[in-house]
């Protein structure tokens, strides 16, 4: 014979549910020796349910605390986040990282980066097979480059296949594209018109972002990033 007792504030209420294994019958037995308590007025979080063999002293099964607030009740759901929630969280993480260095950026830059993040992580633009979340560590490298180089022209931002943030600057027939990696590393490609021919010239560079500005200056393409 197994019994289930329902208590409120450690006071047994209304009944015992008795399960007889042989007959599989359920019986509700009022606890006549105790005063009846109207359970409908009890806050749910104070309830404790004892389950066990009626002859044995049983341990209470503690249920997790449930808040009565409606707003908290809505949080009770599956731990699996929807794509929309993941995109929101990714964007929020990046915007928090941006807010930490916000004093180094003009309002125009802050607004621009916010807008670009929202575009790149927009559910309506998401392609399940090859869209990627933005890695915060690479975004931080991008921010370091922006603070150090201080470009005056706004770039176009993108995301690589592995979640690295991308930036591109165009000026006339010149183009600079940079892929930012974690730990201040970057890969850049430069395309410009050849000095003595009609052919386009392409250059590739890899290294620490701290060295990238001087390299861009050396090859005469800093005008792509900043109006002189």
């Amino acid at each position: 014979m197994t019994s289930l007792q329902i208590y409120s504030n450690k006071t047994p209420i209304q009944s015992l549910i008795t399960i007889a294994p042989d007959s599989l019958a359920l019986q509700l037995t009022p606890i006549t020796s105790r005063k009846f308590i109207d359970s409908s007025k009890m806050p749910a979080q104070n309830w404790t349910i004892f389950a066990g063999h009626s002859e044995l002293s049983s341990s209470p099964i503690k249920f997790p605390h449930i808040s009565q607030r409606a707003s908290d009740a809505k949080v009770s759901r599956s731990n699996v986040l929807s794509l929309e929630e993941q995109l929101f969280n990714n964007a929020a993480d990046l915007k928090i990282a941006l807010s930490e260095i916000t004093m180094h950026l003009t309002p125009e830059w802050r607004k621009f980066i916010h807008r670009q993040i929202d575009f790149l992580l927009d559910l309506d633009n998401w392609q399940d097979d090859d869209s990627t979340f933005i890695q915060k560590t690479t975004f931080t490298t991008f921010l370091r480059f922006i603070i150090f180089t201080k470009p005056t022209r706004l770039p176009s931002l993108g995301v690589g296949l592995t979640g690295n943030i991308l930036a591109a600057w165009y000026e006339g027939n010149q183009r600079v594209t940079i892929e930012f990696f974690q730990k201040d590393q970057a890969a850049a490609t430069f395309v410009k018109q050849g000095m003595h021919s009609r052919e386009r010239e392409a250059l590739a560079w890899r290294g620490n972002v701290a060295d990238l500005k001087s390299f861009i200056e050396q090859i005469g393409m800093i005008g792509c990033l900043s109006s002189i």
Partner: protein
Amino acid sequence: MPPDDHVARYCNPQRVIRDPNTDTIKGVFPQAFELRTNKKELYLSTHWMESFSEENDLQFQGVVAALRKKMEVVRPKAAIAKLNTGCVVRCGAMRGLAIEIRDRSNSHNPGYAGIYGMPLDNSDDLFLAQLADECCIEVRGVDEVTDES
């Protein structure tokens, strides 16, 4: 594939370069031509534009129609990059790559073509940059390709 012909590459909205002020398409990032290493891709997926029509607008329309057949979703903010096949092969040769563009079309995927011989680990930054710049004749947004039939 004849060297004067063209192939079209569908570029994810995350890899399209847009003017930061006007939002107009300026090009595509070199990363739009990277192979997906997690899927162990051996070739770059493209569509042979001349297989749809001789006329430029109809070629873009044919590519978008073929993509809609093949893919679950074709995003309006994505772009189609038109590449010259001869330029792709020539730039590859300059980088020591034996590039081949092969027709892989079938009834389910008309015009489908693959660019073979690219580094499988996407290690040649310069070649990818050449694909995005020198070989790229035109980039058109999917939402600019008006007739979707």
